[in-house]
């Protein structure tokens, strides 16, 4: 087995390990608003695939630039998209039986 194949095998085992961690984490009961933290092992898996299978670090400078640009665009999209829901204060208003807001 060549060194390249050995590295791929180790990466595949690491990916399976991270998948098990992610799956195991989902069995733990914790607050609903914190459940998206289950994405953390997935992000590590994405980084591993990017480095070991897509060889992003071995690409020429423009290729690495586009990979980085994709990441930055994604962060901008998600960050700006979630700014409103994460900063909005919701005030609950009581309604009377006619549907009008009560003073």
């Amino acid at each position, binding site marked *: 087995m060549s060194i390249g194949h050995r590295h791929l095998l180790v990466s595949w085992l690491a990916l399976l390990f991270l998948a098990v961690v992610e*799956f195991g984490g989902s069995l733990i009961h914790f607050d609903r608003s914190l*459940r998206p933290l289950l994405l953390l092992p997935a992000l590590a898996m994405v980084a591993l695939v*990017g480095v070991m299978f897509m060889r992003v670090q071995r690409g*020429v400078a423009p290729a690495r630039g586009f*990979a980085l640009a994709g990441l930055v665009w*994604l962060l901008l999209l998600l960050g700006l998209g979630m700014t409103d829901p994460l900063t909005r204060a919701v005030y609950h208003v009581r309604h009377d039986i006619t549907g009008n807001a009560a003073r």
Partner: protein
Amino acid sequence: MSDEIAPHLHFQYASADHQSDTAIVGMWLFLATEVLFFGGLVLAWMFCRHWQQAGFDAGGRESVLTIGTINLVLLLTSSCVYSSGLVFIELDQPRRLMQCCIVTACLGLAFLVLKSWEWLIDIHEHLFPSMAHFKIIGPDEGGARLFWSFYFVATSLHALHMLIGIVAVCWIAIQARAGRFSAKWATPVEVVGLYWSFVDVVWIVLYPLIYLVGRGT
């Protein structure tokens, strides 16, 4: 550079390396646009779940975890096998590359078969969001319908990308069988590998969003 050394060299490139780098950079640019394409879906998931947490999680609990998990393992394995093929061609073993491509395509097909079966189960369970007799009723119904809308759109788009990837991998296998690739010329193998791994990355992100976050709440 002579035609014997680089028979695939097009006239507009200074060298084979220049042509190869251009193809790989082009694929990375395409993948960056794909990140934005799927990023919109992830944003939709975050936005809708933020306002409808209970309904979204109720919807997520109905997803078929077993098939989703098997599919994750299938895709991780397929990416590893395809990358092995790339290493083989760098060692000048085109026959091994062809074998790796066939295994990769079979794993991809197995993914699609399982996904189709899962869709049938979902529809049979009355989880299609526009169904009149939706499975989840009560206060969580609206959020659950939103979740299943996200599920069907996201998995359909991913399956479409898988289908394109399988065709590309089969094309690489045919070309490898015809002896078109060698240690000196394997750019198309690398470019298709980038696309295949990206499809894998998309599923790595979709898996927790669909199958895991809603469970355990």
